[in-house]
């Protein structure tokens, strides 16, 4: 066990130079084809940065949008090509010298993230909702992030027609990190991916055009708590290294289940110490539970969801969840299956309090974005129920749920951007009264999303819920299913309350108006509705897809 065991991709060259002299460096073996989706997105993000530097301000928006959409489409095509080429099943391999796993779950999640990212980019680029400012169409983002809110500088920036087109490369970097996160196959790559997707998100949260102080406050909260969570994760990784003498998923797993018993002399004092393993894995899992917003690590969710620009909220709620649950699955199924009897009761408890906590606290919410935030917490609980199943069915049910959930979420937040009054988005629930009378179509679409969240049959929410509950019941967690249906019933109450408000209340005289969006947001909402209904009525194809993607490569 030399230095290669620590991390092959990062240390191969260094080790080679120590052993064989400087002139015999072996180039690391990188499977560019299998890493193409990530490389395309990150490459496009870099191009986006260059556009910011060199393209004239007037054309930046179009250039950025073009690059982002093309990159995401190309990356998605690459994922499809890989999946069609069997890289998700028979040719599933560990690539990039052990750093990245390219297998079924990874490709499925990458495809989901890319599609969700694409739809989210459409909502980022929406410029018809806010009133025209000084002759310029504006999006949901601040004119100049550096200008102090309410200052003359801000006014000047608005007047000059500045736009924060940096959001596109930022989103691409985040998506790039998210693509790596669920496919990371060693703890260092895992951590780097975590940071690569988290940092742009912290920034994006701070960039709201309206209610800037709230937005910045949300970003600071998210950043501070996120930094805590990252620190925990990193500490956990260090402890795991102390325990296993490696950060590679496969090696750690083997040390955990006792296949490898040789002790690295440098780590003789710590290797095989179960306390390190338990504390370390608990810390890593804590960091992940923070990212998915599971109780008791959920405190940031409502504030950040409320403060962030709504398109970012939708993107975050959907894609972050997909990536983080993907990573959690891989961690629990690949690295820690030997520890199953230790983590299952803990996750069981977390799932129970997450489902119930999210559903119960949501009842008292009066802001639509906060309500959706708590709803997303409850959904994290449902997904955890599938994670606990520890079966192949459990994996595919979680994959399916994530796919179904992310489109509903983005669609729902896209609808939230449409309902506006003089102060921007009218997110207070009382303002939504009678929306169904005024704009039946928008209200009906939002009702479809709410019913999907509530898990009413014939929507994707029901198929997903059924899949995870079935997996959980088959995995022997029947009691969890009962808690699940009880919290679904509680959750149904507040979704229905919104529907009551929209359809059965009289519209207020000074109520908000519904802005007519450009085709961009319409596409986002349309895709959301279509996916919701298709996955509700005919989910078989996608269940098959998820079912074939249920096996992790080790």
């Amino acid at each position, binding site marked *: 066990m030399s230095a290669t065991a620590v991390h092959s991709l990062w240390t191969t060259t260094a080790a080679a130079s120590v052993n064989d002299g400087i002139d015999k460096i072996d180039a690391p073996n990188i499977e560019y084809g299998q890493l193409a989706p990530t490389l395309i997105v990150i490459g496009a993000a870099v191009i986006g940065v260059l556009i910011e530097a060199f393209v004239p301000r007037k054309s930046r928006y179009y250039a950025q949008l073009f690059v982002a959409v093309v990159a995401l489409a190309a990356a998605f095509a690459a994922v499809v090509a890989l999946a069609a080429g069997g890289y998700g099943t028979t040719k599933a391999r560990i690539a990039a010298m052990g750093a990245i796993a390219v297998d079924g779950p990874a490709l499925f999640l990458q495809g989901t993230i890319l599609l969700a990212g694409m739809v989210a980019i459409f909502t980022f680029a929406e410029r018809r909702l806010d009133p025209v400012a000084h002759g310029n169409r504006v999006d949901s983002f601040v004119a100049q992030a550096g200008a102090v809110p309410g200052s003359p500088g801000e006014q000047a920036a608005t007047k000059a027609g500045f736009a924060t087109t940096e959001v596109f490369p930022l989103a691409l970097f985040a998506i790039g990190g998210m693509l790596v996160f669920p496919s990371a196959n060693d703890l260092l790559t895992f951590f780097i991916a975590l940071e690569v997707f988290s940092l742009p998100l912290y920034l994006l949260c701070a960039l709201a055009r309206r209610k800037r102080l709230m937005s910045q406050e949300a970003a600071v909260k998210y950043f501070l708590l996120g930094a805590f969570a990252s620190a925990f994760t990193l500490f956990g990784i260090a402890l795991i290294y102390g325990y296993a003498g490696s950060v590679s998923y496969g090696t750690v797993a083997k040390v955990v289940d006792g296949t490898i018993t040789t002790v690295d002399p440098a780590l003789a004092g710590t290797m095989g110490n179960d306390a390190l393993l338990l504390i370390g894995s608990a810390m890593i899992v804590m960091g992940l539970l923070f990212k998915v917003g599971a109780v008791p690590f959920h405190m940031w969710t409502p504030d950040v969801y409320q403060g962030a620009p709504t398109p970012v909220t939708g993107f975050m709620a959907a894609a972050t969840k997909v990536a983080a649950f993907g990573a959690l699955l891989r961690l629990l199924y690949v690295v820690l299956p030997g520890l199953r009897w230790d983590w299952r009761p803990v996750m069981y408890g977390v799932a129970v309090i997450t489902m119930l906590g999210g559903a119960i606290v949501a009842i008292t919410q009066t802001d639509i974005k906060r309500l959706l935030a708590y709803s997303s917490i409850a959904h994290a609980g449902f997904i955890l129920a599938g994670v606990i199943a520890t079966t192949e069915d459990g994996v595919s049910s979680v994959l399916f749920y994530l796919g179904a959930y992310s489109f509903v979420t983005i669609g729902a937040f896209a609808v939230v951007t449409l309902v506006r009054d003089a102060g921007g988005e009218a997110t207070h629930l009382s303002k939504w009264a009678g929306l169904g*009378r005024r704009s039946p179509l928008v209200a009906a679409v939002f009702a479809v999303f709410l019913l999907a969240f509530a898990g*009413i*049959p014939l929507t994707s929410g029901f198929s997903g819920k059924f899949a995870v509950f079935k997996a959980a019941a088959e995995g022997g967690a029947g009691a969890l299913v009962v808690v699940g*249906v009880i919290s679904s019933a509680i959750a149904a109450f507040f979704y229905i309350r919104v529907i009551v408000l929209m*359809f*059965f209340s009289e519209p207020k005289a000074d109520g908000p108006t519904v802005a007519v969006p450009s085709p961009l947001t319409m596409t986002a909402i349309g895709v959301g509705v279509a996916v919701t209904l298709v996955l509700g009525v005919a989910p078989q194809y996608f269940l098959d897809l998820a079912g074939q993607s249920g096996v992790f490569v080790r």
Partner: protein
Amino acid sequence: MSFPLLTATAALPAVGAIATAAVPAARRTAAKWLALFFSLATLALAVVVAVRFDPDGDRYQLTESRAWIKDFGVRYELGVDGIGVALIALTALLIPFIILAGWHDADPLETKSSRWRPTQGFFALILAVEAMVIISFEATDVFLFYIFFEAMLIPMYFLIGGFGDRAHSGSDENASAQRSYAAVKFLLYNLVGGLIMLAAVIGLYVVAGNFSLQEIAEARANGSLDMATNTERLLFLGFFFAFAVKAPLWPLHTWLPNAMGEATAPVAVLITAVVDKVGTFAMLRFCLQLFPEASKWATPVILVLALVSIVYGALLAVGQRDIKRLVAYASISHFGFIILGIFAMTSQGQSGATLYMVNHGISTAALMLVAGFLISRRGSRLIADYGGVQKVAPVLAGTFLIGGLATLSLPGLAPFVSEFLVLVGTFARYPAVGIIATFGIVLAALYTLVLYQRTMTGPVKPEVASMPDLKVRELAVVAPLIALLIVLGVYPKPVTELVNPAVKHTMSDVQKKDPKPDVEAAK
């Protein structure tokens, strides 16, 4: 591959719902006629189903089976037995009358927004409910049934909450609050029931590995699928709870008076005469077939609950001051009879219960729709606001009386036959229960006749002095229903012949034989 008749019967109203919803805002009347057309076409298909069905043939006929969601072990499986045919016919029969009776219920009070189209929505939702109810009667796959059992709550919810009783004046803030309260209560009760059933549905899958009613029932019968006693009981309770909420059975009934009180009369009929029947139907089809042992285990408790429903519902009906709530409590009492008949576990009881479902649908529709016409004339639901109506509107009063007499099971009208069968069937096995249930009939006479007396007889109240009698449209709704009540009261054979073989199958599922007559037992 033969023509998928059952799919067509369920799909036709669904297509009608979409077509009706798509009618432009200004063409309100066209939407109504379109909805009526689709409901009549569905009735025609239901008649074809009834004709093509051979009562003495296989248990499930006109079956269809297609792959649907393989991963969940779910197939798209349809098939009807005699009970299903009877209830499909009832549903298809009542919907045109409901549409006709609600002809003006959803006319917008003022045409402010060109995009708000309540009329189209109202009739589309009624057709959507019809489609979902019909497919619930047809589904022989537990999952397929469950999906529509749950999904029908949504259109029902909008019908209750979105189209309140005009008698309560549409713009009144308080009335709209009460209405949405009723709608939410309806939805939450049924959703909780449904979600508990979902846990049981998943449990059933874990135990049985698929959702096919026939396969599971067969495997249960030949012993290849053995359920632990406790598992079976828990699953039974999960299913029964949902059906008992829907039916509704005391003490899960409290949503019904609210819902029926606040909804328009046609929607109230839709709830009690059509949608609630899915609950009692499902008890017969799913509880007894899938969990025969547990059904027998739970029988004593369920009989007691049914008795409480019968007596409690009737007592509360006597005490009501609101006409629609009175009918609602009377319905709770009648659902008690239906459930009593099902769980008496005798063939008379179960035939009677099925017949009761059909007859209760028709008689409640007659009573409630006439009550609706009455209420829309005076603008009040309170019994005290009426008096002497028979002098100013004799036809209205007469039809109201016949509907009322049917509700109290007067011999010669259809409900008598079914109530008699239920009581005989119950008495054969549980004499004490049968005797107590009889009090329900006495109380029914009380609440119906008192209702009639207070509203229709006596001195003419000044507010009702100028009340017009039934119009042609209203007569067209009421007359056929009353004719049907009389025909089925005198000649119930077509329905009983349809139902009896199906009941025999169910009885053999629970391995119960009818108790021998006392004469033989004495020997």
